[in-house]
């Protein structure tokens, strides 16, 4: 089984996102895929536009919090959905190119608007050979 994948986990009121990867950056990319999947079927989103995102924090948990919240901000202000994420992380610095398109309500059937990534179940860690990045998303 590949080490690069994502999943959702249970929270009574909201939903958790968890990304797995061979590297820290891959786990962050997968957590972002999981977040889009909270809103819509990610296969419906086309990579027609790219934007850049950068965050800095020496604490890995806080870096994930900032990364996901930066995406939420871009989704909200640009009215976009994202489907593909290229992340690089160098010490405390994250740089990303993100691909997606404008929300099409008919086609994407977005089911919920994300309010924010939270500190609940927020964790970034290495487990044997792969990285895990997770938190609960307030919707």
């Amino acid at each position, binding site marked *: 089984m590949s080490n690069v994948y994502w999943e*959702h986990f*249970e*929270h*009574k*009121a*909201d*939903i958790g996102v968890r990304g797995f990867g061979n590297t820290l950056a891959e786990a962050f990319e997968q957590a972002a895929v999981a977040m889009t999947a909270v*809103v819509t079927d990610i296969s419906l989103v086309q990579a027609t536009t790219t934007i850049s995102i950068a965050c800095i924090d020496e604490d890995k948990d*806080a870096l994930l*919090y*900032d990364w996901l*919240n930066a995406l*939420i*901000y871009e989704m*909200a*202000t640009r*009215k976009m959905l994202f489907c593909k994420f290229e992340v690089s992380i160098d010490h405390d610095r994250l740089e990303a190119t993100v691909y997606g398109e404008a*929300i099409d*309500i008919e086609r*994407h*059937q*977005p*089911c*919920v*608007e994300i*309010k*924010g*990534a*939270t*500190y*609940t179940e*927020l964790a970034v860690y290495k487990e044997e050979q792969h990285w895990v990045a997770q938190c*609960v998303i*307030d*919707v």
Partner: protein
Amino acid sequence: MNINNLQRISNAEWKIDAHAGMHVPAIIYASEELMLSMDDKVYEQVTNVARLPGIVKASYAMPDAHWGYGFPIGGVAAFDADQGGVISAGGVGFDISCGVRTLHTGLSIEDVMASQKQLADVLYQHIPAGLGSTGNIHLNSKQMKEMLNGGALWAINNGYGERKDLERIEEHGRMQGADPAQVSQFAQKRQQNEMGTLGSGNHYLEVQKVVEIYHAETARAFGIQQGDVKISIHCGSRGLGHQIGTEFLKQMVVSAKDYAIKLPDRELACAPIHSKLGQRYLGAMRAGINCALANREIITHLTREAVHRLFPDARLDLLYDVSHNTCKLEQHDIDGEMKQLYVHRKGATRAFGPGHPELPPELRDAGQPVLIGGTMGTASYILAGTEQSMGLAYGSACHGAGRNMSRRQAVRQWHGGQVIQQLADRGIIIRSPSKRGVAEEAPGAYKDVNAVVTSAEDAGLARMVAKLEPLICIKG
């Protein structure tokens, strides 16, 4: 929840004595049945709140409590600023001043049922709902600042809403002490095209019929009769509130050690009220409250326009507007001494009792209307604050049904189309941009709202006044 470690005080009140670093006890108001189905996380969170500095009397949880962010959803706690008391971004929540308002319509059920589909369509077309929707109002930075200072009053001054609505809104529609300068450019940008939008998730606009009156005298004072049609709106401070919550939560996590605050859970991040960060958050959060009040006032205006297209003579007077994610400075009697306290209500409704000076004169004898939202398939309730409630949890009551099942479980169990059809068979029309959104919000995913309000009444938090059932639900 395992109730063996709790002391039962009455039918609907349970106490956890202060232990392991708790400054005060924790109190949960709920029936035994609700207690048994309540998340264990509520126990953990309500006791964690009791460990925060400066907390007064007790940490409370309402009958609809469930797992929240630091505070349980349905949590109430008050802090004394002069005793090192704190203010917590998690204790207010991401959707600052999310709340419910209910409008009279003067229409009969027959009027509405004769054009139920048209009314559903005109409301759905007229009120932006769901992800990706934008309003027709676009604010520049000067207007944004005025809105953040002015709340519902700003909306009315700009042609959205009626002046007499103001006395039926907490804080008379305008939260004092807002400081727009503390609201970041990011938060303002997130809001510039979102005024007058409903949002998504559990937010809705519902046309409802009054099916039962429990307390005739209070119902009369509120203007509610059996067979009335009312419209209820549930939404909050939209992107602006979410962004304020996100930014201050992190700042409070990072700075907790500077203030020597030991956090039992990072989500409980807070700052002393008497600190720079505490004051900055207070100013931003109050601006967020004004944003929510302005937003509900604009949606009310849009609702009036939509209803008037079909019923030109309908009068949509505001019954009341409550907020259920706030921190407010209030005066409370603590063992015979009047104290100024910062009361956090996270997923809890203010429920001031009869005679409270905050209430408008015509409602003062009856107590504050407490508006409890149900789900799109179950009843909503109108309650009233009681004299007793002021001495329980600072004049607070429950806020809704509370989820009983995660969104994931709900989607596995139901399809949106099937939920819409089942409700249609019962005479309820749903309009929503997303079928999956409907499945996630399926009525079966929530607790029995009847059990929640019955517990609130049993505990003395509020008195049941009327029951309303949905006819039309616009879901974001």
